[in-house]
Every structure is written in C-alpha cells, then in structure tokens.
C-alpha cells in the first residue's frame, strides 16, 4: 500500500448530484483521509431539452439537499469540493443556477468559501468560425464540419478537461463549480495535480464517476478512490457494499462504445491490459492502466430548436381492428394526412404525423413478425409536428374526427375509440435535437473556458 504522500484519495459521494447523497458515506470518506470531494452533476442521457433550455433535470430541492451535505463536509475538513457539469447540462445559466443554490446554503450555514466558476458554453457563431478554419472534426455518424451546422445550434457547450479545475484550486478555490465537463475529468483533477500516474488517475475516475455503479449494490451510494503512480484502488463508501474485480472491470462497459479505450481531452485512456485484483472482499486494486497523450481536443455538444408537437391518445379494444392493425394504421395515416391537406392546404406548413401503437410496435417501429397474435388492446398515440404550437394543435383538431372514428372498412358504422382526456389534444411543446458529435482542436485547455471567482463576503453584503 502506498503512503499518503504517494497517493491521492478522492471521495465520490454519489454517481449523480441530486440522487440523494448519504451523510454517513461522506463522513466515512473524510475520516479515511480524502484529499478532495468530486462529483459529476451532468448527463446527456435524458435528451436535448435540458441543454437547449439550460435547465437541470433534477429538482432544486434535491440538488440543494446534496450540496448542503457536501458543503458542510468541505467546510469541516478544509478539502476542496469540485462539481462538474452543473445543472445537468453545464450551460451558463445552469451553472449560475447552481451557484445561487451554493450561495444560499453558504448564507444559511454561515460559510464564506472561495468559489470558482468554470464556464464552458460557446457562441454558435464563434464555433462556426472555428469550423471554417478547419479546427473541428466530426465523430460518427457525422461526416463533415460545415460551419452552418454550428450556426443553426441554439446552445453549444465544450466539454472541459481537468486543467481548469486544477488551475482554480491552485488559485485558492474552496469550491469549483464547472460547466459541462467530461465525467472523469472532475475526479481526475486533484490526483493529476498531486502527481498521480495519468493512466491510474483517468481509469480510476472513469470507474468512480458513477459512484457505486461499479459495486455489487449499484444504487447504494458512492466510492473512495486511492490513486497512486502505477495503480489505483476502489472501495464503496457504504458498509455492506462491495467492489469486486468483476464489477470494477465490467464498469468499463458502462456507457462506453469501446470497452477498452476512452477518449478524453489531451489523450486516451487505455485499459486493454489493466489487471484487476481483490484486496479484500470489498476493495479492488487495478494496475496496468495507460494514458496515451494526444493533441488536446474538446468534445462539443449542441442543440437546435425544431418544430412543435401536439399529441392525442386513444385506446382501442375493437377486436376486428386489432386483427388488422397494420392495414388499419396505414389507412388511418393516409386519411389523416389527406384531411389536413384538404382542410388546411398550405396553411399547415411543413407538417408531420406519426402514429404510435403501444402494445404493438410503437417502441420498435419495425414490422411485427408474421403470425403474431393480435394484442388485447392498444394505446394509439398521434403526434403532429408543425412549425408552431398553434399549428400543431390545429392539425390535431383537424385530424380528431378521423382519429376518433375511423372504421376498419369504409361505409361501416362509425366506431368511437377511447380518449382519456377532454380536450383530446395535449400540447407537448417544442422539439429539440442534438445536432453535434464533433471535437474541436484547441491551442490549450483554457482557450474556450471562462473562469470567474466569487467572494462570498461580497455576496452576503449585497444580499
């Protein structure tokens, strides 16, 4: 076991800020000699809306609960607190939203921490210029870096590496709130600063950034990482939970399109020859992790605003219809589109109608196998997409009579399918899309970053 001088202990309280940090986990980590509390607050898992709207996925109360515990621990122990990808998306407004919660807690607890903010949102026009200069490369499935692609985005963030966090701590920050950051970078910052091996630091951070997901009970809390020059160790913070060589090595599979190689700003983590060994029944030591230095690039995430959607839902139990579902739905789609065209003409604009038969093939979108028995009932969802919310709703209203009453066969008595609501149409709001999967070459890790320091005394005086 390496001595304290040769290793850095990282306290990872949970896999995602807002999921409910356990005070006991944090106390145990501090008692074990942690040098830093590091937590990832971000994700793109839940789609583009959060980035597009600069908003957090989790509630303010959930975030405040977790931050409060961490700020209390930071204050008591004196070690720094790093939060990456604040407000889920790491956009500027989401970072400011997090800062305001931190300031609120600081006031309530009578703390005056020095706070560093690392902004990583980018102006679409500025990124378009970088694309025109040839500094941006596409990742699959994109094949080009047309400046227009970036201009069309309403929000772009660049994913921070560890360097801005390190610089902020060296400049005296007690709490660092980061904009969008690569998940492992928040955890790797302090180990790298203290001279840990790059391979172990990055690999450990990838393993640890989801908290106990690398342990036998994945929903139970966080982990402690001990990172040295040539190896790292990982153990869960919750008593009774266990990390095993299997759970730790399998974690490289999680969220990774390649189980051995992970691209990060400034290089590549290579776990191909990593060796996992049990120290005891709950801790694992990993050796053989490599970091291959490469030219520094930052990943870009970007969203664009698209059309608006209005939704209707009916339930269908009619056995005759359910026996001929594919043919029925094809005919209904034709009838609805024709009705919108004849009723609204060009006034409908560029519109789209989608029918989703839940209980049949709404989720797969693929033809159902021949000979499959009919469902007992389906929930048929109608989605109209149009240039404005009002138009999408007019289209839904136009379709309503036939969505509601279309018989299986023409010139049959009209059925009535089962709406659950009045009014039938539900305004779903704007559609957003991720438009980017690109990397930008930068001259240094700070080129696209804005760092700001906040002194809480001033904030308290101005409150």
């Amino acid at each position: 076991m390496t001595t304290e001088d040769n290793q850095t202990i990282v306290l990872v309280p949970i896999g995602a800020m807002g999921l409910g940090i356990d005070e006991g986990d944090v106390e145990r980590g501090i008692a074990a000699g942690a040098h830093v509390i590091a937590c990832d607050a971000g994700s793109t898992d839940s789609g583009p809306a959060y980035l597009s709207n600069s908003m957090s996925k989790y509630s303010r109360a959930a975030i405040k609960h977790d931050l409060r515990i961490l700020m209390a621990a930071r204050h008591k122990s004196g070690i720094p607190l790093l939060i990456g990808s604040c407000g889920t998306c790491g956009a500027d407004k989401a970072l400011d939203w997090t800062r305001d919660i931190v300031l609120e807690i600081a006031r309530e607890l009578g703390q005056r921490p020095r706070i560093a903010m690392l902004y990583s949102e980018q102006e679409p026009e500025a990124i378009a210029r970088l694309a025109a200069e040839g500094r941006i490369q596409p990742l699959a499935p994109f094949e080009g870096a047309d400046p227009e692609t970036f201009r069309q985005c309403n929000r772009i963030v660049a994913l921070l590496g560890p360097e801005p966090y390190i610089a902020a701590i060296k400049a005296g920050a007690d709490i660092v709130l980061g904009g969008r950051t690569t998940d492992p970078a928040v955890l790797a910052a302090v180990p790298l600063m203290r001279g840990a091996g790059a391979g172990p630091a990055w690999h450990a951070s990838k393993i640890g950034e989801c908290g106990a997901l690398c342990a036998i009970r994945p929903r139970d809390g966080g982990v402690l990482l001990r990172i040295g020059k040539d190896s790292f160790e990982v153990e869960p913070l919750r008593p009774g939970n266990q990390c095993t060589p299997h759970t730790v090595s399998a974690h490289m599979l999680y969220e990774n399109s390649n189980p051995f190689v992970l691209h990060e700003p400034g290089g590549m983590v290579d776990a191909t020859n990593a060796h996992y060994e049990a120290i005891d029944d709950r801790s694992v030591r990993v050796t053989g992790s490599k970091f291959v230095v490469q030219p520094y690039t930052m990943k870009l995430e970007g969203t664009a605003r698209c059309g608006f959607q209005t939704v209707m839902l009916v339930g269908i139990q009619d056995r005759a219809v359910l026996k001929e579902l594919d043919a029925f739905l094809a005919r209904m789609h034709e009838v609805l589109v024709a009705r919108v065209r004849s009723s609204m003409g060009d006034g409908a604009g560029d519109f789209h109608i989608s029918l989703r038969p839940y209980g049949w093939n709404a989720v797969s979108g693929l033809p159902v196998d021949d000979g499959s028995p009919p469902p007992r009932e389906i929930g048929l969802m109608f989605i109209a997409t149009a240039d404005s919310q009002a138009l999408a709703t007019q289209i839904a209203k136009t379709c309503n009579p036939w969505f509601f009453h279309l018989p299986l066969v023409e010139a049959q008595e009209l059925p009535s399918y089962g709406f659950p609501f009045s009014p039938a149409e539900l305004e779903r709001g704007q559609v957003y899309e991720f438009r980017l999967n690109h990397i930008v070459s930068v001259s240094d890790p700070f080129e696209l970053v804005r760092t700001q320091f906040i002194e809480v005394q001033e904030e308290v005086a101005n409150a």
Partner: protein
Amino acid sequence: MITVDMFFHDQESFDRYVNSKVLQPAGIAPMFGVRPDQVGFYPVRNLHVLKISYPRKDPQGGMIERDLHGGQQFARIVDLELL
C-alpha cells in the same frame, strides 16, 4: 451511439457463440438500420461479454423518438438464434 453488452453464462458459451453470424457487424447492422462498417464489435473474453455499438440513425429526443435512453434496443437481439 447505442451500446449493447451481452453477458454469456460462462467461458464455454462465450467461446461457442461469440462468432455466431447473426452477432457479427453484418448481421447486427440491418437490424438497426446502419452500415456494417459503423458497428463496433468488442469481445471481452475475460468477462464473457460481447459488446456491440452502433450510431443512432436519428438524433436522440428529436421529432422521431421511440426510445429516448435506448434502453429497449436489446429486445431485438434477445430472440436471435445463435448457430
């Protein structure tokens, strides 16, 4: 990217089935509407795991979304016959 991890029961079943035609990029690609050269194929022998990865056809959460987190994509693979 969507990534699917297939955990085989043991080394023997992994070794026996990992080279099944239906699991190779050419077999997987048409199921998800992508090209074989876009499918990543990663056998992890010491974990008895086969990982396959492929890009989404449409952007996540856009106009046409059926499975936001991609958590139901595995269902198409479950019924494949491995020969």
